[in-house]
């Protein structure tokens, strides 16, 4: 059964430029997919195709069960979009912006008014509700934009680089709002260049580069895919460091690196958590006391760079 977002062989060409070169996606209902990629990878174009703002050159896509080309009206009724540039009217107040969107969704005036108050509360914008949005900070504008996308409680939400240009505090607030949405069962597709963001918010990640999905999986799977895990430990008694080194040598796939002053050792391994428990067991058996031990997985940054060949496409993100 196709998911709430389903795309097959999606292609979008602008003249000679191919922005999206055959993307397949499937997001089951209630799941969060992170579309991760460098600038110009085709993330925004993909979102614009799925939200009916662009017609695909070829390929098909359904959102909430409706075909984006054949029934764009039905798709629009089921989705919320929060774009890369917060699209709120700068000369209207926060309240006026939300009411306008509500009325355009076809809500009656009273319903739009009530829903507006609810959203202003929820996104902590009450104090600024009657100020023009041009006076808002970047974070406030983003929250207002997100609120605008949520006026009719869409079943599928698209968030295009939701935290671009936000300070850490605002980003955290936005993440919490997004996590709440996901917890309520909204299907989400978010694009991001921040690996940390995808790691935290997404159930699944599709890594996009040059218009194609080059890897997909859960954040954990992607990290495992590149291997390069290591066991890191610190021995309590620096005198036992020789023993610890020879012990690690038996488990690691390369020579451990040793820091004799701090008693810290590190070795690349293949076995994951099971191997770690074996190492701990052995350490206990030989009576080597340790302060700290852990399995260190590669960060998504490392995964990302290894997948995209470390040379993100440098062209500007396609805005069309």
């Amino acid at each position, binding site marked *: 059964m196709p998911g709430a977002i389903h795309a097959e062989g999606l292609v979008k060409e602008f003249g000679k430029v191919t922005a999206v070169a055959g993307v397949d996606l499937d997001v089951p209902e209630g799941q969060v997919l992170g579309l991760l990629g460098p600038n110009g990878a085709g993330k925004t174009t993909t979102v614009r195709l799925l939200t009916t703002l662009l017609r695909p050159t070829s390929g098909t896509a359904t959102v909430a069960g409706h075909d984006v080309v054949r029934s764009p009206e039905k798709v629009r009724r089921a989705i919320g979009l929060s*774009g890369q540039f917060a699209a709120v009217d*700068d000369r209207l107040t926060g309240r006026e912006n939300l009411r306008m969107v509500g009325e355009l969704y*076809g809500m009656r005036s009273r319903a*739009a008014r009530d829903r507006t108050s609810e959203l202003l509360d929820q996104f902590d914008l009450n104090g600024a509700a009657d100020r023009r949005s041009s006076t808002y900070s970047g974070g406030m504008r983003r929250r207002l934009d997100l609120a605008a996308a949520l006026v009719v409680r869409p079943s599928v939400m698209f968030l295009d680089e939701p935290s671009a240009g936000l300070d850490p505090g605002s980003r955290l607030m936005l993440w919490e709002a997004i996590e709440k949405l996901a917890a309520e069962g909204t299907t989400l597709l978010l694009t991001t260049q921040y690996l940390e963001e995808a790691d935290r918010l997404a159930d699944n990640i599709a890594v996009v580069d040059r218009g194609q999905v080059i890897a997909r999986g859960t954040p954990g799977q992607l990290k495992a895919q590149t291997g390069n895990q290591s066991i890191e430990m610190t021995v309590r008694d620096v005198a036992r460091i020789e023993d610890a080194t020879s012990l690690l040598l038996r488990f690691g796939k390369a020579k451990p690196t040793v820091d004799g002053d701090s008693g810290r050792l590190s070795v690349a391994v293949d076995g994951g958590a099971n191997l770690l428990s074996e190492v701990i067991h052995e350490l206990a058996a030989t009576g080597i006391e340790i302060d700290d031990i852990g399995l260190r997985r590669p960060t998504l940054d490392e995964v990302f760079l290894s997948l995209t060949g470390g040379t993100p496409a440098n062209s500007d993100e396609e805005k069309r």
Partner: protein
Amino acid sequence: MTVAVAPEPTAQDVLAAGGTLKSLRDTWVITKRNTLRMMRIPEALLLGMAQPVVFVLLFAYIFAGTFTVPGGGGSMAYREYMMPGFFAQTVAFVTAGNSSIGMANDIQRGMVDRFRSLPISRAALLNGRAAADIVQNCLVIVVMVICAVVVGWRIHRGLGHAILGFLLLLVLGYALSWVGVLIGMAVRTPEAAGSGNFLWLFPLTFLSNAFVTPSTLPAVLRFAAEWNPISATIQACRNQFGNPSLMQTHTFPMLHPALVSLLWSVGIAVICRTLAVRKYSSVGA
């Protein structure tokens, strides 16, 4: 094929989507928004209206004395002659400027994306643009009329005819709004829209009977001036207001100016609106 059917948005709060009623309401919501935007920067609105007023005063007190209108009346007669020209020119500049810059602005700032991702009729955003221009035009005409009365312009055929004249101006303004909408979508940046307007608005308004009589022009220009939609509208206004018209030619548009003005306006509106709606649904594609 079975598909996951998403729950429709809270149904009891939502009017039936699609249909003329929804489309009218969408247009109303967008018109409200555009009018509100206009009112939020009153200084821009006021400065925009001050500019034609300054021109009227300059013409009335500097040039009017040097032009003579056949039939006598001196500078007073020229002031009455030029005012319908100023009405039409101001309406043209205000609407085309407004709609092209407003549209380009909405595209640049992502508002068009926002609106296009909503379940509203394709034409609502554009209709709301043109409708807001009508509101602004009414304001502008009121200001211009006050200014005209101050410099000595009067209506001579009663209120009914005068209202007909102003209606023709509003219809012309509505038609030119659609030209502006089309330009705004084509150029995409408000700066380009602003400077692009001068390229066609100055020739359009000056190559007319607004301030001089076309009979003084070389044949080609004269033909253009006489068939210019602006000229027909101005001529019709002069007739309706009972202002001097300097009419020395007997070409069709000058003999039936109200009809020609209306035909032009309807023609421009229909063609540009059709093109604009088509372009809107593919904007950015």
